[in-house]
Each structure stands twice: as structure tokens, then as C-alpha cells.
């Protein structure tokens, strides 16, 4: 009997990267992604949760501020506190910050405009459940598409993130150098993605799910999803390996 890992992709009103995340998992073996409507109260035993990008509730008030009160978020918070892996991409990152699962906030880009193009990000911590397939300081090419991705946190929070290796990705030049010109939104410490203290909740502004096939311009995002499956399979050894 084949047991597949189950990954919930949450759809909020206004989510628009839910299908892209779903598809990124569909390209892999041993995992069954499933859409979950935001009004559902229970996660129903899934192995991981993805909060996709988009404009939940039109980004009205503040990006992510209304979605965090969706019924499903109580379960997501509980799941995260119990150590379940949660991945928030773009608007999903904003929702995680609003929900208090990650520290800080995402402000309007310092250039005031929406920015959509490929960026380079450097893997700062390959020791998370989402990055084990990357090398330390590996440079990835992935798209961004956001108007509010300027990561902000209090100095002591930034110090804690730095000290504990919780900064997972930083914006950089193609050769891995940190520079203001390579920081597309003014993020503090060039932050593109961070994890929570336990390491099981990742929020990132770039879109790894849009970089999973060479025909789309890059497949540098694929190892992120593969890393997560490795992690899940290791945690539940009977799952994942029996499938073809």
C-alpha cells in the first residue's frame, strides 16, 4: 500500500499562487497536495502547510492582516506550535508575521513601487527543513513579485535572528555579494526569508514555486520543496518511500 505525504495549500479569498504551489508539489513523487479553503477549521492530519502568495482580502488594511483571522489560521498556529512545517510565501509570509508566528513586519518597498523580476538569493542556513538540499551560501535565481516586502524588525529582534541563524535567505548579486543595489525592497539585513525559533516555520518573499522548471527560466526553487519532503519522510519513515 502506498502512503503519500499530505501537504495542505490554503486558499484565502484573494490568494493567487495557490495553484502554483500545488503544482510545485505535483511535480514531485510521494506527496499529495490538497487545497484547503480558509473557512475550514481543521487541518485534518496533514504533514505540512503552505500559505501561498496573492492578495488575501485585497491586501486591504495591511497585507495579511485580515487573513490571519480566517478560521483555518487557529489550526495553522496550533500545527506550527506543535512543530509541523509551515511555509509562507510572499503574502503567506505577510500572514505569518501578522499572525505572530514570525517576528517583524513587511513594509511597503522602499522604492514605493511593486517589483516583479528575478532576484538572486543566498542560502544562509541549509540546516532547516526547507533548505537541506542546498549548499551553504548557494546562490539561487528566483522571481519576486510584491509591493510590500521590506522586512522590518526591532534591532534586538534582528540581532536574535542573526545570532540564531534564523535568516535563511538574503538578497544578493549573482555572485553572492550583499549590496544595496541587489536588495529590491529595502529589507533590513537584506532579509528575503526567515524561520521561527524552532525552525519549522519559514516565511520568504521570493517565489520558489515559480522556479521549478527550466522552461520557466529557473529550477532553483525545486530543492526547497524536495528538502521539505526529505524532512517529512524522515519524520514519518513509513510515508513517502512506498510510492512511485
Amino acid at each position, binding site marked *: 500500500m502506498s502512503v503519500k505525504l499530505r501537504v495542505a495549500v490554503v486558499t484565502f479569498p484573494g490568494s493567487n499562487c495557490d495553484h502554483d504551489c500545488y503544482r510545485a508539489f505535483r511535480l514531485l513523487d510521494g506527496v499529495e497536495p490538497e487545497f484547503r479553503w480558509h473557512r475550514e477549521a481543521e487541518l485534518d492530519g496533514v504533514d505540512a502547510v503552505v500559505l501561498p502568495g496573492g492578495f488575501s482580502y485585497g491586501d486591504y*488594511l*495591511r497585507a495579511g*492582516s*485580515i487573513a490571519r*483571522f480566517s478560521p483555518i489560521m487557529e489550526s495553522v498556529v496550533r500545527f506550527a506550535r506543535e512543530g509541523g512545517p509551515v511555509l509562507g510565501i510572499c503574502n503567506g509570509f505577510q500572514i505569518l*508575521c*501578522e499572525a505572530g508566528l514570525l*517576528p*517583524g*513586519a513587511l*513594509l*511597503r*518597498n*522602499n*522604492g*514605493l513601487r511593486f517589483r516583479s523580476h528575478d532576484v538572486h538569493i543566498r542560502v544562509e542556513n541549509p540546516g532547516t527543513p526547507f533548505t537541506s538540499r542546498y549548499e551553504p551560501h548557494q546562490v539561487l535565481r528566483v522571481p519576486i513579485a510584491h509591493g510590500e516586502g521590506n522586512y*522590518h*524588525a*526591532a534591532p534586538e529582534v534582528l540581532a536574535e535572528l542573526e545570532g540564531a541563524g534564523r535568516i535563511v535567505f538574503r538578497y544578493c548579486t549573482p555572485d553572492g555579494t550583499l549590496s544595496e543595489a541587489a536588495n529590491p525592497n*529595502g529589507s533590513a539585513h537584506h532579509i528575503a526569508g526567515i524561520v521561527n525559533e524552532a525552525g519549522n516555520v519559514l516565511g520568504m518573499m521570493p517565489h520558489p514555486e515559480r522556479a521549478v522548471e527550466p522552461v520557466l527560466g529557473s529550477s532553483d526553487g525545486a530543492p526547497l520543496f524536495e528538502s521539505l519532503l526529505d524532512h517529512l519522510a524522515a519524520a514519518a519513515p513509513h510515508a513517502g518511500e512506498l510510492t512511485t
Partner: protein
Amino acid sequence: MSLFHATVRVTPRPGLLDPEGKAIHHALESLGYDGVGEVRVGKAITLEVEAASRDEALARVDEMCRKLLANPVTEDYRIELSEEEGGTP
């Protein structure tokens, strides 16, 4: 119960970079408005709230601000409250 009109002013916390405020400041200068100090851009949210007393109305709006209307990481808020004349007792 009385009807109260509340205006919540949400502003970026002091010291937080406000690029929109900076851009507006720059534009005002280039239009010849000298002597303009720091410009900060926030938002005003108006609400109607039913409550038994002014204190209760204030407490409710304050809770709304903490929970949803402002982000404590980046924003401050101020509440202005006025009571509808001839409100039903």
C-alpha cells in the same frame, strides 16, 4: 445605547522609515514649499460604534486597534471619539 463616531489615526512609529512621507516631502520642496518639516503618511479609519458609555466605546475601539486596525510592530494609533447627538438611550 449610544452611537459613537470614532476616528482611528494610524501612523508609522517614530523612527520608522516612511518612504512615502519622504517622497511627498521632496515633492513639496520642489513645488517651492519651504520650511516643511518631517512628513509622515498614515491612514484614518472612521467607524460607528454602539456602546453604553463613552468609556466602553473607547475600550472597544482600543481593542480593535490592538487586534486588527494597527500593527504594533510598525504603527501607532490614536482614537478620537464623538457621540452622535440624540442617540437612543
